[in-house]
């Protein structure tokens, strides 16, 4: 019984582990910045954020961006399971004064891998950069999930308490 207890407690801790909060990632040649107009962290499916790519190797030109959604994780399902691990944007955007930007509402939490291909004037790829954008979960949704799971555990606890007590009584008779 005690073993089961331990496993149960361990599983609940694992499931309720909060998401880590890391924003962009710097890579040689190109840096990605996420600016949220509403302030604070970008919330998925709520905030439209400005994704700014800062290039150190080119001033003007264009870049082919390929943004993928986070891969599916077994223990953390998201609001849009169909979207997980698919292509989100594949387009060429212009680079002006060493900067390229686009506004985007990220659909789910997680790490978005982004491939940026720098194109020269003839349209041939001069450099390829791999970047990572981290979008944390909406704190309100995390709070609601904890409350919901808490209610379920409480419900189970009461049911276990009542049923076991009743069972004990019938045996005692």
């Amino acid at each position, binding site marked *: *019984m005690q073993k*089961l*207890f331990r496993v*149960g*407690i361990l*599983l*609940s801790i694992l*499931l309720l582990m909060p998401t880590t909060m890391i924003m962009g990632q710097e890579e040689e040649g190109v840096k990605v910045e996420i600016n949220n107009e509403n302030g604070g962290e970008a919330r998925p*499916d709520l905030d*439209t954020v400005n994704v700014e790519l800062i290039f150190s190797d080119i001033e003007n030109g*264009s870049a082919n961006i390929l943004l993928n*959604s986070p891969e599916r994780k*077994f223990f953390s*399902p998201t609001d*849009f*399971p*169909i*979207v997980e691990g*698919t*292509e*989100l*944007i*594949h*387009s*060429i*955007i*212009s680079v002006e004064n060493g900067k390229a930007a*686009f*506004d*985007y*509402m990220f*659909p*789910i939490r997680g790490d978005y891998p982004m491939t940026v291909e720098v194109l020269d004037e003839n349209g041939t790829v001069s450099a390829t950069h791999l970047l990572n954008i981290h979008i944390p979960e909406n704190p309100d949704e995390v709070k609601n999930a904890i409350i919901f*799971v808490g209610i*379920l*555990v*409480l*419900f*189970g*606890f*009461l*049911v*276990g*308490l*009542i*049923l*076991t*007590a009743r*069972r*004990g*009584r019938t045996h*005692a*008779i």
Partner: protein
Amino acid sequence: MQYKGLLFILGFAFIIVLSTSVVMAHDNNDSGRSVDHHAEVGKLYSFEGKLEAEENGPYEIQFHAVRLEDDAQILTMKNTSEDGSYQFAAQFFDGAEHDVTFSLINPATNKVIAEKTELVEVQGFDPPMFIKVKTIFFLVMMIGIGMLLGMGVIKLRRQRQRTKGGALHGI
């Protein structure tokens, strides 16, 4: 015996959830406008075309996608174009109607020379069965953990009473 009851509850909850799940696809057009594109959630959709303008290029061309049900600004990006032709590929992650606007901009004055808006209908999908089963399993497991805790509390109290030497009065 009590496991039989638990199994019954598990099966019942499972059947209810599976039978009540609804495909959230928008089949009819709410706005009454003609649909220009049919996209699907989970797949890239490519837009190609050309905007005609009297002025000569090069131009800046802007792609702007708005979700109509809540006016959410989904995606805005810019590229340059010599003759007004464009190519953008993006995925719509929500099975709702979207407006996509292509604007041809004069880079010197930042004025919009030409613009066109197209309606995109996006087909949504039900979450895969595997995900549903997994989620149900997680949630039922939470109840199960709670039940084990409740059972454990009673067992502990009984054990304590027994070690005290008192008779079992049935809590």
